[in-house]
């Protein structure tokens, strides 16, 4: 329970929730709340920053735009959508949270997410850890060679880079090539044993997309388009994303 009663202004001054409704199919059902609280009772973020999904939605509906668009709770919702799943009216609270994130000035959004998004936008690998096309190709080839020699049963195992017209284009989270390259190998072995025809690409290989978490639509789109183009340029049929 809040320690103090929330005081409302004299007249409804909301624009935030109305703007969000305009952007969502069916208005995100944002005006259909029955105030039952099923969302909050099943939300792991309930209680953080004195907030919960029902309260967040009610505050938005009451026009408390400043509170809604400034609470750091927006960054503590993982957008898991359990609230939608249990909601009798299927209200899209996570999308409301997404737009609340977007209302933050870009440079005031959490530094960790901002930094990762900006680094990913710097080159065509989309790596949030800044790994370049050359870095990635070198690590993959180096690790592969090591394993082909050390484990002769896998002497013919491949980890192709930029192989054209194969079935699967495989993404890789930056964490492995950058910090724990041996962790890439078990997946290569599985793909080898099942005879999968696959490839990495030097462009768009990084699986992560922090611009999405940042609620940076342009950055998010640019990263998805860069990755999709990489898959298409190589003529691959299926884009396998391990994230």
């Amino acid at each position, binding site marked *: 329970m809040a320690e103090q009663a929330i005081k409302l202004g004299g007249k409804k001054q909301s624009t935030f929730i109305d703007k969000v409704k305009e952007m969502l199919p069916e208005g995100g059902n944002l005006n259909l709340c029955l105030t039952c609280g099923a969302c909050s009772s*099943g939300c*792991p*973020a309930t*209680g*953080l*920053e004195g907030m919960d999904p029902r309260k967040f939605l009610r505050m938005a509906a009451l026009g408390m735009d400043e509170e809604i668009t400034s609470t*750091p709770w927006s*960054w*503590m*919702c*993982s*957008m*898991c*959508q*359990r609230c939608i*799943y249990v909601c009798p009216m299927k209200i899209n609270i996570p999308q409301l949270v997404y737009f609340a994130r977007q209302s933050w000035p870009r440079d005031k959004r*959490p*530094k*960790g*997410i901002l930094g*990762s998004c900006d680094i990913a936008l710097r080159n065509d690998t989309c790596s949030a850890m800044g790994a370049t096309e050359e870095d990635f190709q070198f690590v993959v080839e180096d690790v592969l060679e090591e*394993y082909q020699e*050390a*484990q002769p*049963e*896998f002497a013919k195992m491949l980890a192709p880079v930029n192989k054209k017209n194969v079935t699967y284009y495989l993404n890789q*989270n930056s*964490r492995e090539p950058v910090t*724990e390259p*041996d*962790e890439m*190998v*078990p*997946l290569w*072995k*599985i793909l080898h*044993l099942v005879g999968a025809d696959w490839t990495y690409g030097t462009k768009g290989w990084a*699986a*992560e997309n*922090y611009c999405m*978490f*940042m609620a940076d639509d342009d950055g998010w789109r640019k990263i998805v388009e860069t990755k999709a183009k990489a898959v298409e340029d190589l003529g691959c049929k299926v884009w396998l994303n*391990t*994230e």
Partner: protein
Amino acid sequence: MVRKSYGDPVAEDLRYVVKAIIGEENFVEMYPNRSNNFCCGGGGGFLQSGFPDQRREYGRIKAEQILATGAKYCITPCHNCHAQVHDLSDVRNHPWETVHIWTLLCLSLGILGPNERAYLGEDLKDVDVFHPESSNF
């Protein structure tokens, strides 16, 4: 992947895979599960948002779900989940191990080398090591 895109049938597919790898008798279900399950709190940017205390408090429900199973290993589907569930274990004196499914799949096939075991516990570290002489250590 379950709640947001493919629904409960894909959760059944994954159970088939996990049971085939570890043996049905070693599979422990957590509750609630499938689309009713709780998010661990690693996703949505939470890991990078600079609120570690709140993130761990968010993850308390997941940690209690895992502890209630009594299982020694928790399989996570992605890097966000892996990092968060691993951290939730670390801050509790490491009561469980957190692994990717590819690690267990290769272990069950007898092709998991000595350097591919970063996330296995002491009980499995030395089990059926593929080319133990290829260790860097």
